[in-house]
């Protein structure tokens, strides 16, 4: 029989990379969401800053930060490769298509939703990551920790920022609504008993996590947490 192409360059292998990086990013979301939710202690950011301090000084977390960036880059590069190849696979477009008849709009819009998330990520990194790593956090809290919480408060006192964050979380929600369960299908995990559970879990995750994230800028802007 003929020679075989490598796994990672095959169409299925590329999908595995999408799925693995996607699920890895989801695991990051869990940690990120959990720690950021410390702002809801409403203690002037003391708990939140303890968490932020731990994340900034723990070597394992710092190492994972590099893995995270590589994961995002791989996810984006692979998404681009897949999207370009898929375009090439249909050189002449249909005059009329009725996609709504056979699939969810967000499953057909993963590239667009991902691009919106990417644009948000750039703004988001500039707001917090660049400040905490490079330009420096100006003040300290009562525990003597760098007051990242205060940076958040200033950032989220601007209405446009709040709106951008909320829109980005809506994009993330839809991206995950398809992506979460899609990754399991890609890995070949489709089972009469477990797939309904995975789909239900994915749906709840896609709603709850972005909702908690979106509540952070809203709560700060509205003054629910001080």
């Amino acid at each position, binding site marked *: *029989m003929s020679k075989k192409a490598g796994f990672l360059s095959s169409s299925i292998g590329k999908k595995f990379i999408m799925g693995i990086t996607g699920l890895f990013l989801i695991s990051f979301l869990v940690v990120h969401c959990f720690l950021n939710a410390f702002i809801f202690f409403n203690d002037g950011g003391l708990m939140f800053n303890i968490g932020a301090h731990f994340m900034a000084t723990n070597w394992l977390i710092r190492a994972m930060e590099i893995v995270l960036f590589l994961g995002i880059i791989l996810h984006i590069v692979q998404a681009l490769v897949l999207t370009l190849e898929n375009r090439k*696979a*249909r050189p*002449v477009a249909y005059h*009329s298509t009725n996609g709504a008849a056979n699939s969810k709009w967000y499953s057909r819009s993963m590239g667009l939703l991902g691009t919106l998330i990417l644009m948000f990520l750039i703004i988001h990194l500039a707001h917090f990551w660049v400040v905490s790593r490079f330009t420096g956090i100006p003040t300290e809290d009562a525990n003597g920790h760098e007051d990242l919480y205060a940076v958040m408060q200033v950032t989220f006192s601007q209405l446009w920022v709040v709106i951008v964050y909320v829109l980005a979380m809506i994009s993330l929600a839809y991206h995950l609504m398809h992506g979460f369960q899609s990754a399991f299908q*890609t890995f070949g995990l489709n089972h009469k008993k477990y797939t309904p559970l995975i789909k239900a879990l994915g749906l709840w995750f896609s709603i709850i996590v972005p909702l908690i994230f979106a509540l952070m800028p809203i709560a700060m802007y509205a003054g629910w947490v001080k």
Partner: protein
Amino acid sequence: MSHGNMNLTLKVWKQKNKNEKGRFETYDAKGISPDMSFLEMFDVVNEQLISSGKEPIAFDHDCREGICGMCSMYINGRPHGPKQGITTCQLHMRSFKDGDTIVVEPWRSAAFPVIKDLAVDRSSFDRIMSAGGFVSVNTGNVKDANNILIGKNEADEAFNAAACIGCGACVAACKNSSAMLFVSAKVSQLALLPQGQVEKQDRVLNMVKQMDEEGFGNCTNTGACEAECPKSISLENIARMNREYLGATLTQNK
């Protein structure tokens, strides 16, 4: 049953050959019975075209009963038209209303070049089959049917996968022109049964390789294929193929 005959406007894709650029042509379909099939409606239009000295519309068909998979037409934005679980030959004109305009296009995919008008060349599917969609081990003479025990579940799943008629609607429906549903059905129907299991690793590796070489796109699990498949082939087959492919890559000692 001549009551309620319909007059329709057809916007049909006309294309001389795979190299020429195509365009839409508008036709009137007059006095169409709601009991006609979509293909019979085309027969009527073509007869009128021929008798008035014009070129008929080229379209593929053979069995006209939903088993050969030839009647590829993308009708009003959906493969095989507005109904679920049927081919174009099984679509009746009663699914449309008098006065409707119907847009008819060929399957559009780099791997399915247009031969003429609505007829496309699906030999890429044949080449995928030639790459591994068969059993070549010696299975001996005809045995007693119960010699090889096969569980009811496996038998049913294999049978459901084998219902695929190779029509290409999955590719046509997919926003990525992915052939994963077709290939996974063909991989599954053999991988599930004892005599096909012997070669299952080579089979999945070779068929996927051929699929990629033919220029089909990459699956993003939108599920459009399953929804439009006239034989309701399940996405579970794609998952099975993905695991078989991973397993074959990891354990093959070649």
